[in-house]
C-alpha cells in the first residue's frame, strides 16, 4: 500500500484505467478514516482527545494498490478531478437505447456512391 499525495494518486489512477482496458478491472474505495492505528485511537479516546477524520481513497487493479486521503478543505478539488478522470475513462458503458436506435437507422441509410472511372489519354 503506497500512500500518495492526491495529484500523483490521480495520475497513477489514470494509468491503472489505461492498463485495464483490454482485460481486468479497477476498484476504487472510499472510506472515512483517522489514518491511525487502533491502539493510538484508543489512547486518544481515553485521553479525551478529538480524533481527526479524513476521507481515505484506495485504488487497485488487482496487482498494485495505491491510496491517498483528503480532508474537509481539499476534498472538493479532488472530487472534481476524480470525476473528470472517470468521465474520460469510463467509455465502455452503453449510451441510452434511444440514441442507439437512431444511430442504427443512420447506418442503414448509407448512400451508395457510384464510382466513375476515367481514362486519361496521355
Amino acid at each position, binding site marked *: 500500500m503506497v500512500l500518495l499525495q492526491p495529484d500523483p494518486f490521480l495520475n497513477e489512477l489514470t494509468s491503472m*484505467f489505461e492498463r*485495464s*482496458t*483490454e*482485460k*481486468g*478491472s*479497477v*476498484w*476504487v*474505495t*472510499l*472510506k*472515512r478514516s483517522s489514518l491511525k492505528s487502533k491502539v493510538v485511537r484508543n489512547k486518544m479516546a481515553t485521553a479525551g482527545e478529538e480524533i481527526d*477524520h*479524513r*476521507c*481515505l481513497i484506495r485504488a487497485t487493479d488487482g496487482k498494485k494498490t495505491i491510496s491517498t486521503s*483528503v*480532508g*474537509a478543505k481539499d*476534498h*472538493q478539488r*479532488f*472530487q472534481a478531478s*476524480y*470525476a473528470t478522470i*472517470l*468521465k474520460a*475513462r*469510463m*467509455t*465502455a*458503458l*452503453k*449510451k*441510452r437505447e434511444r440514441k442507439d436506435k437512431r444511430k442504427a437507422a443512420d447506418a442503414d441509410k448509407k448512400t451508395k456512391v457510384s464510382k466513375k472511372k476515367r481514362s486519361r489519354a496521355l
Partner: protein
Amino acid sequence: MVYITSWDDFVEKSVQLFRADPESTRYTMKYRHCDGKLVLKVTDNRECLKFKTDQAQDAKKMEKLNNIFFTLMSRGPEADISEVTGKEQMEVQPAKKGRGRKQ
C-alpha cells in the same frame, strides 16, 4: 447477494448505512472496461448494498453519489448533503437557457 435495482433506493440506503456506522462503512466502485460494467458497493461488514449497471447515464448518477460520500467522509456524517445533491442540477440548467431563440 442481491443487487438493488432502483438507483434512488440504493443512494438512500447507502447514506443511511454510512450514517449508522461511519467508522466502518466503505464505498467501493468496480469498473471493468472490457465488459463495460460498473458495480457499486456499500458495506459496513454486516450489511452489503450493491448496484450494477452497464449504462453511461448511471455513471453520471454515480458522480453525484461520489460527491455525497466525499463530503460525508471528509466533513463528517453530520455534513449537509442537500447542497451536494442539488448543486449540479442547478448549475447545469441555467447554462442551457438564455442563449438566443430556437427557430
